[in-house]
């Protein structure tokens, strides 16, 4: 497990999405609030990258800017070297909930995106069914949205976004409204989908355990303390064998380290090397907290 430097430059060819110096302020009733500060990041082709952080760290804002649903004050987002500002099917997004169209059946929801990218009519149904099959819902293609469980709805949403074959799939806390059991099933499912489609995924969550279970790399965001500081606190490479389960020891251990880093506001190398036996009572409590975090 290596803690990578926050500003990571990758070689040109394998970079899918490149974020350069993004900053964003919101004007609220309490004055200006810095939502995002000086974020630079490269996403490799085929990578499963997680943005994690406590609420208010700007992770959703960052995803929305990449998705074109929000605009940055400064900085740029480059997709395969080309700047993008408006939303588009090359960056299809899966939301927390409620983004499926209830007036359409499951398969028609998937077909909706195909209509937008002008897939010929006779191909739409087959392609939609193909992606419903990938998420394991071929039996429910003609179901109304309200007839599906929360987990099934998120699978349809994933199928709908995958069907337009985005260059990067954006996911904004897609599992946070689901119960723990459904979520655990979907962790396995999503890893399988990611491996079988070779998709590049950018995934936002506040759940550190979830981040370590799913990600190749975990980018920890924070609310910048001083003007000009980057919102990126640290970047962690996750080199645990897949498929990972949220209760795996390695996942739990690494999640704890990330949680500690998150809590202390800076990297503490000694935490990364300390053994379980050597923990004093307060850090044990903190460890317990972070385990709870992972389950929340």
């Amino acid at each position, binding site marked *: 497990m290596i803690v990578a430097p926050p500003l990571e430059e990758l070689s040109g060819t394998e970079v899918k999405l490149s974020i350069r110096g993004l900053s964003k302020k919101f004007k609220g009733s309490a004055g200006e609030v810095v939502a995002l500060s000086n974020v630079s990041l490269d996403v490799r082709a085929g990578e499963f990258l997680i943005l994690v952080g406590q609420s208010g760290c700007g992770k959703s804002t960052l995803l929305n800017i990449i998705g074109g649903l929000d605009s940055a004050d400064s900085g740029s987002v480059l997709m395969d070297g080309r700047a993008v500002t408006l939303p588009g099917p090359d960056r299809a997004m899966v939301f927390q909930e409620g983004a499926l169209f209830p007036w359409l059946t499951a398969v028609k929801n998937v077909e*909706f995106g195909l209509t937008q990218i002008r897939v010929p009519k006779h191909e739409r149904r087959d392609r939609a069914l193909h992606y419903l099959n990938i998420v394991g819902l071929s039996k429910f293609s003609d179901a109304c949205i309200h007839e599906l469980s929360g987990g099934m709805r998120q699978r349809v949403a994933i199928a709908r976004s995958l069907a337009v074959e985005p260059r990067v799939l954006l996911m904004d806390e897609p599992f946070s409204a689901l119960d723990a059991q459904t979520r655990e099933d979907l962790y396995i499912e999503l890893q399988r989908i990611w491996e079988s489609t070779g998709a590049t995924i950018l995934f936002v969550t506040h759940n550190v355990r979830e981040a370590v279970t799913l990600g190749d790399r975990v980018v920890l965001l924070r609310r910048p303390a001083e003007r000009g500081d980057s919102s990126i606190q640290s970047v962690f490479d996750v080199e645990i064998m897949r498929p990972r389960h949220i209760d795996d020891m390695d996942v739990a251990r690494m999640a704890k380290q990330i949680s500690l880093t998150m809590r202390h506001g800076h990297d503490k190398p000694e935490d990364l090397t300390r053994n379980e036996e050597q923990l004093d009572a307060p850090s044990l409590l903190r460890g317990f907290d972070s385990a709870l975090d992972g389950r929340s």
Partner: protein
Amino acid sequence: MAVAKAGIWDSTLFPAPGKVLENMIDGFRTGTIPMAISASLKRVCMGYGISLLIGVPLGILVARKQLFRDTIGALVSGLQALPSICWLPLALLWFGLNDKAILFVVVMGSLVSITIAVQDGVRNLPPGYVRAARTLGCKGLPMYTQVLLPASLPAILIAAKLGWAYAWRALMSGELLFVSIGLGHLLMMGRELADMSQVLSVMIVIIAIGLFTDKVIFGNAELQVRERFGLARA
């Protein structure tokens, strides 16, 4: 019936239910009531149809576009304060003593309420639909026809129901004031002939038509939409 028998009012002013029924059967047999119903329904359907065709797109545009909100939106909410029958003098001068004048009154009555109700519905839509559609590459006209329109179906249905009630009322008051064949006219004729049983039987017909459209036509459409959207049955 008991009230009628009690003789508190003169029987010409408060006819027994039997008399009213008799008059109604008579009206249907001679064809005066069916003729009036068809004339009134024709007018209301035309006026209401025009209102729907203009009001629904207008409501969506006012909700979505700042330009429409600042211009038409402000105008429409101002006009809401004006009872539709107040348009009659203006309509008579513009169109003359003909069906067009009544049609105008009906349109002005229902168009405003439909536009406002649709606009409210669209503005209260969950933002998730539009955001999801945008990230799937949907923009321009398809956003209106494939997302906003179907998403606001429940709201449009409420607007349509409201618009129907306004159209029906506007038509009746129009027909009362402005003589031509129709239910309102038949009602007025009953007054002029001091035939209270005719007045009452026409009133019953008006209520029956209103109830029928509300319960049967809108009731069924509402049930279907609610089922599709997975909303609880009212």
